[in-house]
Every structure is written in structure tokens, then in C-alpha cells.
């Protein structure tokens, strides 16, 4: 199709409601740097943005500003809670160092109030265990956050068109590593575990860590460390024996193709 044949479809494209084959044709024109289509789509996007002006004025809560700044690691974090925002998901607030400190303070208070030595030991052991778990959680979330907020992070989705997902996203940061977020992924059966794989172009899959899914079907897994995004074809997940495997032994449950780096 030539540009003239597409002229009735630029507005629809800008609105996100263009249909095939015109949508694909516009995409092709834009990808090859067609100046006519670029100018027309830009104008349509401008018109589209202006239609937003017909939305009634509304005021967000006064906390939103702080949340946004905190979500990229700036301004005051809420005492005791660490906001973790996952694109496409609702934000999750998880215990941070503040609540760890609070738990420690409660521990001291318990002693002061006369817990017996045995009770104290049991409580302290439990709290230490919880603190270790929380510290591990925070470390994982910090890694996840670093990947999500990295300026060079690439993003890809999986499961979007499957009738029975798992669905989710994979984020790859060249310096920080790979983050996988999934939903509708049932907990692995007894003695089994999920294993993530980074699949280089034209090479064998590389193991990228073991993880378990929650009862809710949600899972998050971080494989920290540098990753060559440009030479990565896909990220996949298989179900393996709980010790993991050097190479996949089952068909992948998740395959997220890595998009080519933007030019």
C-alpha cells in the first residue's frame, strides 16, 4: 500500500484501533522511515493526545508523588515498608528495614516484659529466621528493582495469547541480570522445581536459577549478574527435579522471545 491508501488509517493507528492489513502497512512504513507516514502519524498522535483534554479534571492523592519518587529509589521510603512496583501489576508493599528494626525492638521488649528464657530463645530464633527471610526477600526485591529501573532494561512478555497461561513478563538488564514475573504458574509438584534458562542465539540454554511459585500462582525470579541481551534469543522456564538440571529435560512451560535491541 502507498501512503495515500493509508491516509484514512493514521488516526485509527494513533488511537490503537487500526485493523489489518493497514496497521501492519503503517508499521512497515514507519519502520523504513517513511517521512509521509511519520508526519501523518505524529499529527494523529497529537490529535489523539488532545482528545485526552475532554477527560474531566481530577486530583490524585497527595501520596502519589512520594510513591512515584520512592518507586525509582528517591525521596523518603516509608518507614518499614518498601514499595515494589511491577509493570502491569498492582504495586506491592513489602517489609523493609524499618519493620526489621521494629521486629528487633519487639524482641527486646518481650524480654523486658518477662518472657522466660526458653520462650525468649524460641521467639528470638523465630524472629531471626523471619529476619533472614525478609533480608533475602529484600535482597531479591532490590535486585528486581534495580533491573526494573535500569535505563537499558529490555522487556518482553509471554503467554499473552495462550488460552491457559502462565503469563507474565521478563526484564533483561545488561548489567543487572534477568527478572521473570509470572502469574497463573501453579506451584511445582513435590520434588520438582521451576528452572529458568537464558537461551543464546544459536547456542545451548544456560541455566539461570531455580524458583518456586506461590500458591496464588504468582512467581518472581531474579538471576543477577551481567547478561548479553543482544545475543539472547529467549528466556524459558521448564519443570525440573528439585536439584535442577544442566540442560532442560522437559518441554518449556514459558518461552519469552527477547526483542531485538532498539536501533
Amino acid at each position: 500500500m502507498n501512503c495515500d491508501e493509508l491516509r484514512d488509517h493514521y488516526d485509527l493507528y494513533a488511537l490503537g484501533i487500526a485493523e489489518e492489513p493497514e496497521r501492519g502497512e503503517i508499521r512497515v512504513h514507519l519502520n523504513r522511515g517513511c517521512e509521509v507516514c511519520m508526519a501523518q502519524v505524529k499529527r494523529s498522535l497529537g490529535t489523539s493526545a488532545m482528545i485526552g483534554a475532554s477527560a474531566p479534571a481530577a486530583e490524585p492523592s497527595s501520596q502519589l508523588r512520594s510513591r512515584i519518587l520512592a518507586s525509582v529509589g528517591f525521596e523518603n521510603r516509608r518507614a518499614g515498608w518498601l514499595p515494589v512496583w511491577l509493570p502491569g501489576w498492582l504495586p506491592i508493599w513489602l517489609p523493609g528495614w524499618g519493620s526489621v528494626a521494629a521486629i528487633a525492638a519487639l524482641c527486646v521488649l518481650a524480654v523486658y516484659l518477662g518472657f522466660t528464657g526458653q520462650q525468649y530463645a524460641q521467639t528470638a530464633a523465630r524472629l531471626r529466621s523471619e529476619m533472614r527471610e525478609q533480608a533475602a526477600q529484600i535482597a531479591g526485591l532490590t535486585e528486581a528493582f534495580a533491573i526494573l529501573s535500569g535505563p537499558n532494561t529490555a522487556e518482553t512478555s509471554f503467554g499473552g495469547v495462550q488460552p491457559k497461561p502462565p503469563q507474565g513478563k521478563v526484564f533483561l538488564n545488561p548489567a543487572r541480570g534477568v527478572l521473570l514475573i509470572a502469574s497463573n504458574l501453579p506451584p511445582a509438584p513435590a520434588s520438582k522445581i521451576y528452572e529458568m534458562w537464558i537461551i543464546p542465539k544459536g547456542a545451548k540454554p544456560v541455566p539461570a536459577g531455580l524458583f518456586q511459585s506461590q500458591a496464588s500462582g504468582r512467581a518472581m525470579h531474579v538471576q543477577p549478574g551481567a547478561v548479553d541481551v543482544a545475543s539472547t534469543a529467549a528466556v524459558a522456564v521448564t519443570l525440573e527435579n528439585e536439584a535442577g538440571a544442566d540442560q532442560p529435560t522437559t518441554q518449556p512451560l514459558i518461552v519469552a522471545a527477547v526483542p531485538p535491541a532498539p536501533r
Partner: protein
Amino acid sequence: MLPIILAIYAGPEERALISRLQRRDPKALAELYDSYGRAAYALVLRVVRDRAIAEDLVQETFLRVWNRVHQMDSEKGALGPWLLAIARNRAIDYLRSSAGRERNAIELNETDHAPLYREMEAEILISDQARRVRAAMDRLAPNYRTVMELAYFEGLSQSEMSEKMGQPLGTIKTWVRTALQSLRNELGVAVPS
């Protein structure tokens, strides 16, 4: 209305703001929010009609801008339209996924690519354009206004509009085309010959 207008008008200060965001200046993000937060929120709230979800999506929008601002040309970029496009696309994407409708994430992502927002303000903006758009929307015949709202604020395809409104697809396409033509005429935008 003013925040929307401000969001669409980009001046030299905004270009400096883009540069600061690209340098990861945290105060720049605060300024970005102060400039565009309300506009983005109003737009997203109109789409999802839930304050808590709207705030989550606005947060997502700003984080996406923060992560992708390096794509923006600091000399020629237009932050406002870009940010609003991302906000709208995030909201539509949420609406579609929560309703179990097929997501158009790929297409929506295409339309929030920063390079498409180069030098946009010079082409589309005059100071009272936003008011004119609203007035133009109000003056549209009810059916035309409905299809524009379904398309822009609910992200419905023409086929989905046909089903929702109980009208033939051809009729919907005619209404959409006529509504867009009317808006162009009202806004004084030249229709390509």
C-alpha cells in the same frame, strides 16, 4: 483542563527537563510529576474509573518514562504528549486485560515510542487547543461522540464497538471516520487531499 494544556505545550524548560531526566536527576522526576501528574491522573481515571487503580497506573507511567527517557530527543522531544500517550496506553491495556479482552499491547507500545513525539508541539499546539477539542467533542452528534469515547477512553476496536452498540461494522466505521473528520474540521486541521 489547564494541566492537559500544560502537558501538551513544551518549551525550552521542558527540553532542559528531558536532559536532566536522562542524567538521572531525581529532582527532575519530581518536576515532571508536578507538571504532568494531574493531567495523567485525570486521563487515566477517565479510562479506568477507579482512583486507586488510576494512581497505580500513573505510577507505572512515570516509571516507564523514567526508564525510557533516553529514547527521547532532548532538543526536539515533546514530553507531554508522550507521557499522556503512555498513560492512556497503560490504562487501556489494564482495562482490556481486566475485562478479559485481547490486549493490543504491541500496538499500544508502538504508539508510545518516544521518537514519534519529536517536534510534535510545533505541529499540534496552540494555547487553547485543548478547550477547542473538548468543545468539538461536545458538539459531535451523540453516536459520533460515543464512538470517539469508546475508541479513545476504552480502547475498543471498531469490531468491538459494533458489538457493543449493536450496529453493523460498516456503520461504525462510517461514524468513526465522520467523527474524526468533524473533529478535524472543528479544530481546523487540514485533511490530507
